[in-house]
């Protein structure tokens, strides 16, 4: 698409980046709250237990200890910490403090004290008597009759969907099209495999943290590292029984989120402490606390059965997913659904489909939103089967994908059948650059030179290349809402107020670019203020790849209204009609009279001269659809056949995210997601002992990639133009994390002829697979 833009499509400087680089920008814990109480938490040492008694006498006697909260003195309000819209599609199964402990890391009590030292000492001095209950660790047995039950009768799903705490069933999803049996009968061969993905952590470098204080009128102000300030306000209001009008939530700079900071689990705690003591309060989790007690990526078992004709036509596909949600049901339904809804439409010509999924409780850490959101887990299975189908039917994988993937003008029944906790929304694809992604990515990796060659690079070392394709969405259609308001200043600058939540992605910048483009001004003339529930209009927050597409469109609408007002005033000033006027770089010109006015002239006139008014507007946006971005990702790996070590040599991502508003920021999203995905594929894993205790809650043992681990990386933005998006944009935040796991597995097969069914691909695991298949070398 050759659209001409002024600001859109340019890699303008991220507006907060210099202040961040100088160390001036403030994160939650950087606000100096005078005399703040420090909160420390006592966690359950047992995976499943009942608290028989809590004795806080000694702890309260420690100097500086102000208050200790636990299930006996805090009302039990069941809620979900998922940080979603209302009503949430996640079970109300969580209390701030409960009598039952459901995982090692569950919350027993919290101490508010004058100093961190006193709070920590008090945590150690609390005496708790537990009655241990039989734990449930294996998701495969969670629904068995004799399995320990985690939640009682009172745990409820706030929306009418299948949920059965008595069977540890946190969610169930099933969709079916066509005739599965017939489809499998028509097949010449059937593939059936089971794939497992592991627990993983977001590892935002800023730990979870929240602070609170009472303002001069006694309202509760919460400063917090959140992706969802408005949901925080709503949830805190309900859990603490404080009116919404008395709560203000401010999101300052956030040190990364990736879904982890969608979870609302600290704000109610600082809120409780401050509301009940009148004192400012703060909490800053340690890294081990983040690993164990915050949220994780849900592990999944995916069994995929694919019926195929000899020419490669897939006649039937059945995906059976079992997701482990750990102790609480955060995002249990929607991550599971997403594993189908963002994945199955990609190969939309399959007529007979069944997706069946279950999410179960276990006495392990809690799953939550994480970039990729279920799709990353199921694409692992799908992309390997696609690779197998192409190989078994003797076709080039790239040509195969091109033939069968969804195209412009096409749809998939899955869009309508499967949404976020309810039915989805039918949609027709209006932009798809996947073919170009495939071609450009293939060229960049050297696909045709390397594929199937099993190049021996050194003794015992062999190379291969693999592909993964995926799509995601752009927000949740008909559910997610973003809004913006703007006002004009007499120098021709504008304040832009948005509820949208920049957690480091650069959304403040791209939203400013969208406003600047609409108003035909330099981006410096937009002053952005985001995510303060007192000052900015509502936005659901940063999740589901929604900000650019949903909030971006709200900003565009809002700026268009402002522009209209500007032209109205200018028309009056110039004695012309608004449609006779042209705008160019903050100057309005009337061609006929040759007269022109600057934005500054116009605003000054509107404010001070005649029929005075503030040029200002607001707008909201929901989207009737969720156009998918597409991506083709290629890995080149070198496998050491003696040790099982996989080294990724090169990783190429070619993505169609519509018109990128800011190419550098879009690339940054892809690069960040890829590297996160690479260490998810190769090294990141939760290790548990037999009691369900995580044994490696530190960066020393939970290995995330550093600069030294990087392969050669290439990111290609393939511009398409999404007509429903603001200036042609679709989303880009999540999609790129889907590729590393399947692309590496497919490259590994290309090199060795061995399939990998379980992540992460640690040398031990890979060595075992090579041994099983007799491919080890000495």
């Amino acid at each position, binding site marked *: 698409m050759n659209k001409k833009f002024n600001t859109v499509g340019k*890699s303008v*400087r*991220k507006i*907060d*980046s*210099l202040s*961040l*680089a*100088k*160390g*001036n*920008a*403030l*994160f939650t*814990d*950087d606000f*100096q709250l005078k005399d703040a109480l420090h909160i420390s938490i006592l966690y359950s040492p047992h995976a499943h237990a009942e608290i028989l008694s809590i004795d806080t006498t000694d702890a309260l006697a420690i100097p500086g200890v102000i208050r200790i909260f636990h299930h006996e003195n805090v009302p039990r309000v069941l809620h979900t910490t998922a940080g979603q819209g209302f009503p949430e599609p996640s079970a109300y199964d969580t209390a701030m403090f409960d009598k039952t402990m459901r995982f090692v890391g569950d919350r027993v009590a919290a101490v508010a004290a004058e100093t961190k*030292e006193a709070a920590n000492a008090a945590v150690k001095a609390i005496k708790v008597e537990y009655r241990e209950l039989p734990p449930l660790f294996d998701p495969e047995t969670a629904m068995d009759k004799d399995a320990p039950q985690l939640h009682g009768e009172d745990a409820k799903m706030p929306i009418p969907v299948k949920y059965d705490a008595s069977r540890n069933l946190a969610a169930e999803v099933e969709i079916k099209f066509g005739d599965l049996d017939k489809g499998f009968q028509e097949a010449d061969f059937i593939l059936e495999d089971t794939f497992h993905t592991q627990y993983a952590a*977001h*590892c*935002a*470098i*800023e*730990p979870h943290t929240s602070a609170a204080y009472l303002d001069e009128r006694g309202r509760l102000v919460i400063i917090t590292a959140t992706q969802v300030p408005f949901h925080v306000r709503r949830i805190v209001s309900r859990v603490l029984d404080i009116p919404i009008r008395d709560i203000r939530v401010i999101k300052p*700079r*956030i*040190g*990364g989120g*990736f879904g982890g900071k969608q979870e609302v689990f600290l704000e109610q705690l600082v809120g409780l402490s401050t509301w009940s003591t009148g004192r400012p309060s703060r909490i*800053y989790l*340690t*890294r081990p606390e983040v690993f164990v007690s915050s949220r994780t990526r849900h592990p999944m078992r995916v069994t995929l059965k694919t019926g195929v004709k000899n020419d490669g036509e897939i006649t039937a596909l059945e995906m059976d997913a079992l997701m482990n949600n750990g102790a609480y049901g955060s995002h249990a339904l929607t991550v599971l659904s997403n594993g189908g809804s963002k994945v199955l439409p990609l190969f939309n010509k399959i007529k007979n489909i069944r997706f069946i999924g279950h999410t179960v409780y276990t006495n392990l850490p809690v799953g939550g939103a994480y970039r990729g959101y279920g799709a990353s887990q199921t694409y692992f299975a799908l992309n390997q089967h696609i690779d197998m189908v192409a190989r078994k039917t003797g076709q080039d994988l790239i040509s195969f994908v091109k033939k069968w993937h969804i195209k412009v003008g096409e749809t998939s029944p899955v869009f309508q059948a499967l949404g976020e906790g309810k039915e989805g929304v039918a949609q027709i694809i209006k932009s798809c650059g996947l073919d170009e992604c495939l071609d450009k990515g293939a060229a960049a990796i050297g696909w045709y030179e390397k594929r199937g060659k099993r190049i021996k690079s050194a003794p015992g070392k062999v190379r291969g290349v693999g592909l993964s394709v995926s799509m995601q969405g752009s927000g949740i259609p008909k559910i997610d809402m973003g809004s913006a308001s703007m006002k004009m200043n007499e120098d021709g600058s504008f304040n832009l107020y948005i509820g949208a939540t920049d*957690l*480091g*992605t*650069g959304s403040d910048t791209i939203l400013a670019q969208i406003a600047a483009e609409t108003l035909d001004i330099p981006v410096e003339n937009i002053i952005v203020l985001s995510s303060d529930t007192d000052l900015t209009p509502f936005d659901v927050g940063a999740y589901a790849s929604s900000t650019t597409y949903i909030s971006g469109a709200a900003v565009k609408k809002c700026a268009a209204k402002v522009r209209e007002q500007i032209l109205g005033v200018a028309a009056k000033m110039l004695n012309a009609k608004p449609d006779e006027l042209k705008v160019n770089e903050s100057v309005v010109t009337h061609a006929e009279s040759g007269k022109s006015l600057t934005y500054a002239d116009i605003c000054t006139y509107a404010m001070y001269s005649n029929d005075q008014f503030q040029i200002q507007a607001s707008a909201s946006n929901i989207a009737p659809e969720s156009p998918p971005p597409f991506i083709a990702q290629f890995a080149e790996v070198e496998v050491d056949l003696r040790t099982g070590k996989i080294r990724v040599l090169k990783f190429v991502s070619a993505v169609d995210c519509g018109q990128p508003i800011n190419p*550098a*920021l879009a*690339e*940054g999203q*892809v*690069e*960040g*997601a*890829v*590297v*996160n995905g690479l260490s998810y594929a190769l090294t990141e894993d939760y290790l548990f002992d037999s009691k369900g205790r995580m044994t490696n809650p*530190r*960066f*020393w043992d939970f290995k*995330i*990639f*550093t*600069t*030294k681990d*990087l392969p050669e*990386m290439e*990111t290609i933005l393939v511009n398409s133009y999404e007509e429903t998006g603001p200036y042609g944009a679709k989303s880009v935040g999540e999609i790129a994390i889907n590729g590393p796991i399947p692309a590496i597995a497919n490259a590994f097969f290309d090199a060795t002829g061995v399939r990998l069914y379980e992540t992460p691909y640690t040398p031990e695991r890979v060595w075992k697979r090579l041994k099983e298949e007799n491919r080890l070398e000495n």
Partner: protein
Amino acid sequence: MKTKLTVNNKPVSVQFSPTDRLLDVLRNNGFSEVKEGCRDGECGACVVLLNGKLVNSCQVLAASAMDATVTTVKGLEKDKAAPIQEAFVDAGAVQCGFCTPGMVLATYALLQENPAPDTRQIQQALDGNLCRCTGYVKIIEAVQLAAERTNSHE
């Protein structure tokens, strides 16, 4: 306990408890540009120059830093730091920015020693600084850009 430090060329007297790390002392005294990501010596968000040497301030007991000279990202020599900071901005190497003060300091220390590092050397030098947002690609580009700009000015 009490000690005097010189932080960013200014004398500061601080109080601390025996278990405090240098990181705590700095943050408690308003040097919030020094970040805490792990307290475990693994993430590099807390780095400072301690008597000119790059260290993780969470790994230094406050008591052992008596009378030391500490430089945070805000106290670097402006003419050397500014090109690095500008390069990070221009290269798109700042996402959430939580790692950035540490990255800038690590880059500063690297370029002091080696004004024209190659990619491998950059990867080596920044190995102790975790970033979860950027995938490091643009950070490495930023270091290269900073080196080029600094060298062409000299």
